[in-house]
């Protein structure tokens, strides 16, 4: 399983898609928003938590279809399915690799972009914390969507339609956590709920993803 | 109860809500019936062909 994880990481880095693309997209969205909304600092800092979260979510979405597509094309997914490790484990490792190549860089880059969005000072640690907590859920949920659509030729758009509604709770609690953190309010509730969603999704969704993969590889 | 209809100042509101909802319901029923009839005819034709072959 660890070997699989390392292999996925290497592939993502070599292809250059993982790190670069998601981060670049994140940056562009965050740059475009002030251009559309206007440069006024107060407005920007008001919408900063939401924009940063939505941008992170979209950047995450961008690389989802690559999770299984390449392995499906060259047949290695069939090999993985018959390999002596449980498919649930394969799925979890895939999600983890996706998170390390997208969620983690997004989290690390977020303070710089928050600067552009004029996020109030106390919000920074909460922004990083909420992204670190929430993006694993995005990766796990996205892996589920990718597993559903793996056999389809034009799966990309469908994938977004399927996955985005599933992202709603994570987005709400994640952005709320940043908003409250930035305003200096109590953050315990959204924090715990966000952590709960991530833990629950990571624990349960791999089974659903593996079931979907088995159906698709039948 | 009052028999004659006076919707008052909200006439447009009530009529448009009812209109939109009824249009959607009628469209749903129509689509269901049309597709049902189409599939049924195609199936009957296919069954007839199959009957002839044997």
């Amino acid at each position, binding site marked *: 399983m660890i070997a699989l994880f390392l292999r996925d990481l290497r592939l993502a880095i070599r292809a250059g898609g993982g790190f670069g693309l998601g981060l670049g997209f994140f940056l562009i969205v965050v740059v475009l928003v002030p251009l559309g909304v206007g440069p006024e600092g107060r407005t920007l800092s008001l919408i900063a938590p939401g924009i940063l979260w939505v941008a992170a979510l979209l950047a995450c979405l961008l690389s989802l279809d690559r999770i299984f597509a390449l392995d499906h094309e060259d047949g290695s997914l069939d090999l993985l399915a018959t390999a002596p490790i449980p498919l649930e484990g394969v799925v979890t490792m895939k999600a983890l690799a996706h998170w390390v190549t997208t969620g983690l860089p997004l989290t690390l880059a977020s303070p710089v972009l928050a600067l552009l969005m004029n996020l109030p000072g106390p919000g920074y640690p909460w922004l990083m914390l909420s992204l670190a907590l929430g993006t694993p859920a995005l990766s796990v949920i996205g892996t589920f969507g990718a597993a559903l659509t793996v056999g389809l030729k034009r799966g990309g758009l469908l994938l977004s339609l399927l996955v985005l509604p599933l992202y*709603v709770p994570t987005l709400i609690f994640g952005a709320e956590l940043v908003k409250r953190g930035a305003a200096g309010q109590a953050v315990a509730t959204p924090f715990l709920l966000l952590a709960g969603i991530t833990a629950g999704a990571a624990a349960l969704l791999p089974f659903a993803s593996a079931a*979907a993969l088995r159906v698709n590889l039948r | 109860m009052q028999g004659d209809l006076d919707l008052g100042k909200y006439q447009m509101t009530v009529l448009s809500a009812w209109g939109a909802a009824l249009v959607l319901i009628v469209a749903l029923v129509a689509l269901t019936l049309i597709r049902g009839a189409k599939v049924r005819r195609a199936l009957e034709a296919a069954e007839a062909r199959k009957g002839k072959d044997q």
Partner: protein
Amino acid sequence: MSIWKYANPKQFMQTSAWALRWLVPLTAVLMVLGLVWGFFFTPPELRQGSTVKIIFLHVPSAMIGINAWLMMLVASLIWFIRRHHVSALAARAAAPIGATMTLIALITGAIWGEPMWGTWWAWDPRLTSFLILFLFYLGYMALWAAIEEPDTAADLTSVLCLVGSVFALLSRYAVNFWNQGLHQGPSLTVAQKQHVADAYWYPLMICIAGFIAFFVTLVLLRTRTEIRARRLQALLARERMG
């Protein structure tokens, strides 16, 4: 593999044909009675004026919008556990109806909200979660439409329906937490009718019964169509082979 392995569908076709013989008139009578009563023979309400008449479409369609998803969830579970083909097809048949009902609830709500709240749309928890429910319906139907192999489609959509149900529920609570809304609490509970005056209560009950009958009738009709479409596909495939 025999095309006629669908022994159960055959049984279903017979039973549903018999059921539809009295369900269709029942639906027609209930719908016409409830809607005509609601539209023509209810007095305008004190505060809301004649807009109260929208309730006869808004509440029943919202109920069906939610319960159609529940029915799909149950049907998906049955397909998952028992591999009962009719069940998967019934779930597929119900989705467009549920989506339409959700849309009706949203549209009538928006039109009603304009004079009452002064806005077409507010990001109120109930409104928002209904919009999200509508998105779930769209995704579910899109997945059905995208996959050609019928059993694969049935499997994948039922997985999506199960996962989607959990997340729809989560979203409902998340949205509640996110914003306190304009929408009043539930004005209907099964046991009591405290919020609704008698003049509206009876036609509303008839409308709800009518919408339920309407839903059942349409699901049966559409499931029959789906079964026929499956058989047609199998026949055509055999023609090509032979």
